[in-house]
């Protein structure tokens, strides 16, 4: 069983082979799926806990504070303590709420982000499924989350929740366009929708460098639109705590609230990893064509570190947005999309297509 931190293909294949050799194919498939499910669950739990902690520390440092520092050294167990607290909280049932939808909503939100992450490659050969239409799949699945938010707002029987949910609906319907189109820009450049092929295509230079200005513009647009899609930062209108107290999750308590809370961070992780994969080369090390020695040093750093480093960088950017900017108003939010991002995006695609046609990229 060859194990290497640079290439997981053989490692995964050997597990696959082992299972299929010793079990009937049906059970082997079931076990494989279970393993992947458990791995993702654990991964998400760790990522969620870590991101909540990171967000608190980042915002604390931006605000001249020290942030959580009581539970464990530097407060690293703070989120675990909070999680336990949330587990023990009472689940309050709302009178006249639509029970089924009310209970279903948090799961939909979580599941949507779960489904999307499965297509993302973490390192060479380390991804759950490698669709040929990976990007399309991710765009389609990640927008399911809004259904959960809409249901939560509707079923809570609370006007604040409803306003929040409606805002969220309008917001995601609009920004989904920009997310899609900015990814299309890169698809044109890469010529494929498969994540693994996109990453391989960046072996001799990340797309953000390869695609010159159009790729950079697409990156910025994607960053803005995906921040909006995750209901974060200056676009957190759906929860806008100074206007709607807590927006769509006003009536949720305990662990159901924790689901929404975690889903926000997981969505953030998801869009950050897509941005890292599509624009910044995913797990691909930083290469400059012609610099053999430099490239060798870069190759020495394991792809997982590259991947998480890039994702962390984008997550940091999104946190930086959130803790700097005031919130937009709903009509300005839509103006930003329809008047600025969308036209820019469309022109950008044209430019990119023209560039690819003329072969003006690296």
């Amino acid at each position, binding site marked *: 069983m060859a194990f290497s931190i640079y290439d997981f293909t053989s490692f995964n294949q050997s597990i696959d082979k082992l299972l299929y050799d010793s079990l009937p194919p049906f059970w082997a498939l079931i076990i494989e799926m279970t393993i992947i499910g458990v791995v993702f669950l654990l991964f998400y739990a760790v990522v969620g806990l870590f991101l909540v902690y990171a967000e608190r520390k980042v915002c604390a440092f*931006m605000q001249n*504070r020290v942030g959580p520092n009581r539970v464990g050294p530097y407060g690293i167990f703070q989120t675990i303590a909070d999680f336990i607290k949330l587990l023990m909280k009472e689940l309050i049932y709302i009178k006249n709420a639509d029970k089924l939808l009310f209970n279903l909503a948090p799961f939909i939100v979580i599941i949507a982000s779960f489904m999307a992450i499965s297509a993302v490659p973490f390192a060479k050969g380390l991804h759950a499924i490698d669709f040929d239409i990976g990007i399309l799949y991710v765009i389609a699945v990640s927008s399911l989350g809004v259904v959960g938010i809409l249901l939560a707002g509707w079923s809570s029987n609370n006007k604040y929740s409803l306003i929040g949910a409606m805002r969220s609906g309008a917001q995601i319907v609009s920004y989904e366009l920009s997310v899609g189109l900015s990814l299309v820009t890169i698809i044109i450049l890469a010529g494929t929708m498969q994540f693994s092929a996109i990453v391989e295509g960046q072996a001799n230079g990340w797309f953000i460098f390869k695609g010159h200005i159009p790729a950079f513009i697409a990156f910025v647009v994607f960053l803005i639109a995906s921040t909006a899609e995750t209901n974060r930062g200056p676009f957190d209108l759906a929860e806008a705590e100074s206007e709607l107290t807590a927006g769509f999750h006003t009536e949720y308590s305990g662990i159901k609230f924790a689901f929404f809370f975690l889903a926000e961070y997981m969505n953030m992780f998801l869009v950050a990893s897509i941005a890292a994969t599509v624009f910044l080369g995913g797990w691909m090390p930083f290469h400059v064509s012609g610099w053999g020695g430099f490239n060798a040093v870069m190759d020495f750093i394991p792809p997982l570190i590259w991947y998480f480093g890039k994702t962390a960088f984008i997550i940091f950017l999104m946190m930086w947005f959130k803790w700097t900017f005031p919130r937009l108003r709903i009509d300005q939010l839509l103006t930003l999309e329809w008047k600025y991002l969308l036209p820019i995006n469309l022109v950008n695609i044209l430019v990119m297509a023209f560039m690819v046609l003329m072969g003006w990229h690296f």
Partner: protein
Amino acid sequence: MNSFFQYFADIFNGVKSLLTGMKVTGRYFFSPWEIVTQQYPENRKTLKMYDRFKGEVIMPHTANNEHRCTGCGICETNCPNGSIEIIQDKIDMPDGKKKRIIDKHIYHLSMCTFCGLCIKTCPSDALAWGQEFEHAVFDRTKLTKILNKPGSSILKDISE
């Protein structure tokens, strides 16, 4: 045409103002020495309150357990919310006259608004501000304090 340029000028100025804002938060993020948080229970040892700090009203006593209060009751009348109750006592002086002394100077910390009128108006400067600020207790009755210590007496030069 003008509005066309205006469109791009808007984008440019907007992005510039956003970056200016990000510069501020980014600068503080990378300058942890500007952190202002005081870590309260840990810094208890070094925490020093200003000497004028109004923590509570106290009655300073000398080493011989003597205070300066004559029991005149002026602080009681001046207190705007009845936080002070004076219980007087009479003792027989050697020359046969009766003399008023303080029996109990009762101070309700829970009602005090720290206006300072009692301290300001006391004719014999018997009261002062204490710097104690950790007043949280589980039982409200603990906030009712008797300021003159048991067995204390009035300073000689005040009583004359």
